[in-house]
């Protein structure tokens, strides 16, 4: 009933800076879409255009089937949760949540029912008479969610709602918001620059950079088949390792060569790149310690720079062939700093990017 469609949307601010050059995006009804990207890439701007808080310079924005360019925020049937909660400080939790309904002249008993319903879901019932000042960060955040919920909007907009919370609370609220999405069955658009939030919450993730969509796909796709260097580097934690490698033709197929390492592959997409330098990407978790991963020369041997034992896993930091590598290994691997290790690149999980266009070559 309420998907969101951007058609050639341009946003130029009054100071003449074009933040969104040409945005085309389709968000489906009831979908949980996460907008991620580095600071200043235009995520908030995009969200605020959906909300109607920011005008659209050109192009069309549809919510459902209605063109919304000139529709006031209150008539868009949306609700928004702000990063700093934006609770009305002089009103109690109850009044904060009821405000929108009061303005709509909803009957008192219905307001009461809705507020209590939302408060129950969010575990806020005992705080209804408190002012926001007397609440913890997490509770305030829940009030902000509640304020959005009671209005029963067809689109939920959330702008970095968890960034002011500590790590533990963030994890907790993350699952609470996901649960809420399933319960409410409405469209969610969620802005964050935290890729973990994006990966765990989104049905689909829209990775943006400089106002341009880099890739808009499911978390699995983004992880397995990043379409370019930027997405590859942005999604995944720790970050994907990159190294410049030269493509060489062999009898069996091709080899990607850097340092002492020769990674064999049969992928024909590499044919045009023979003799040229490409960017080889390998995720930290795909650098393996097991011998069964060794295929010819796909190993790198280096001294451990730093070793972080996290218990369940061990992170090794290495310098090799002029690049810095991070390996994420099982916690059973013990390799103190200074020791030499040999790791195998999982040949099935490598990524190769064109050095000029930065586009992925293999998928």
């Amino acid at each position: 009933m309420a998907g969101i469609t951007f058609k050639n949307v341009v946003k130029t601010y009054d100071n003449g800076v074009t933040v969104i050059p040409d945005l085309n995006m389709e968000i489906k009804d009831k979908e949980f879409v996460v907008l991620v990207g580095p600071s200043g890439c235009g995520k908030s701007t995009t969200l605020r255009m959906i909300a109607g808080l920011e005008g659209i310079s050109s192009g069309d924005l549809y919510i459902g089937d209605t063109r919304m360019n000139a529709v006031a925020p209150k008539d868009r049937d949306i609700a928004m949760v702000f990063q700093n909660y934006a609770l009305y400080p002089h009103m109690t939790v109850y009044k904060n949540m009821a405000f929108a309904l009061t303005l709509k002249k909803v009957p008192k008993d219905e307001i009461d029912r809705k507020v209590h319903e939302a408060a129950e879901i969010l575990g806020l019932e005992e705080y209804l008479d408190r002012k926001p000042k007397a609440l913890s960060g997490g509770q305030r955040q829940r009030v902000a969610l509640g304020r959005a919920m009671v209005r029963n909007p067809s689109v939920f907009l959330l702008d970095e709602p968890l960034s002011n919370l500590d790590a533990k609370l963030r994890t907790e609220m993350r699952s609470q918001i996901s649960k809420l999405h399933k319960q409410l069955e409405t469209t969610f658009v969620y802005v964050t620059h935290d890729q973990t939030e994006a990966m765990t919450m989104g049905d689909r993730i829209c990775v943006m950079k400089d106002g341009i969509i880099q890739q808009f796909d499911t978390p699995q796709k983004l992880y397995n088949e990043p379409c370019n260097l930027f997405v590859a580097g942005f999604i995944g934690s720790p970050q994907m390792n990159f190294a410049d490698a030269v493509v060489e033709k062999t009898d069996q197929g091709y080899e990607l060569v850097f340092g002492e390492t020769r990674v064999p592959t049969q992928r024909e997409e590499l044919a045009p790149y023979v003799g040229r330098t490409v960017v080889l990407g390998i995720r930290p978790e795909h650098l393996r310690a097991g011998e069964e991963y060794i295929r010819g020369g796909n190993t790198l041997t280096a001294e451990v720079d730093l070793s972080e034992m996290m218990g369940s896993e061990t992170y090794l930091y290495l310098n090799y062939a002029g690049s810095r590598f991070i390996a994420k290994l099982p916690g059973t691997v013990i390799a103190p700093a200074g020791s030499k290790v040999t790791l195998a690149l999982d040949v099935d999980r490598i990524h190769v990017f064109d050095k000029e266009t930065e586009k992925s070559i293999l998928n």
Partner: protein
Amino acid sequence: MEKRTSYGRTILAYVVLIILAFLCLFFFYILIINATRNHAQIQQGFSFLPGKSFWVNLHNVMNDANIPVMSGIKNSLIVSGAAAILATYFSSLTAYGLYAYDFKLKRPAFIFIMLILVMPTQVSALGFVRLVTGMGMINTLWPLFLPSIAAPAVFYFMYSYMQSTLPLDLVEAARIDGSSEFRTFNRIVLPIMKPAIAVQAIFTFVTTWNNFFVPALIISDNSKKTMPILIAALRSADFMKFDMGKVYMIILIAILPIIIVYLILSRYIIAGVTLGGVKE
């Protein structure tokens, strides 16, 4: 050693504060004492003990047809009260307009208001009187409080306060909640501005209450005079009938409303003084 210095400083601070408090309160004390003494006693010099003429002085003040104290109080209350309300409400509104909205002439508008701020009343007084006469409002109370709608100093205070305490997210949240712009101002912005409004309401009230210059130019009817003009009129009263006891009594009556207003709003003043220092 560290401890002793801070101890010494505390004592010094207290001594200074006690002296200051004494200086401030001493005149109140003289005022109250003298209001209870008769003319002859006051002439003899200062005394720490109250006299017995309180009721006589009060009676004299109330029954002097040339000095309508009750109507003076009433006029002053109307003028000062209206000025305080108009100045705070409209200055907040102006400040909000400049703070929350982006428009082309925003900067020029701001500078223009700041320019008015540095303009002394006396410069525009003649023009003001002519304007008031032309509008048929001479010798009425209107010109004494209507101009408070445009109070640049109050505006500036409100503007700074908004910058430190009113996040624009709140306004946007209200907008999404379906609140009209005007309602957002009245229901969301004004309540948040309460401490600032209280401070400025007191200042405006007191300034207007004490204002002599403008009312003296505008008002000629005895029944429309405000307290400062009435008190001033005492001095030019018949020298033979001059009664200091009465003068002190009138002044005492004149400052009572200010003290009451101050006491009512004082808890906000303290909040307002620390203003900007405490940010959540």
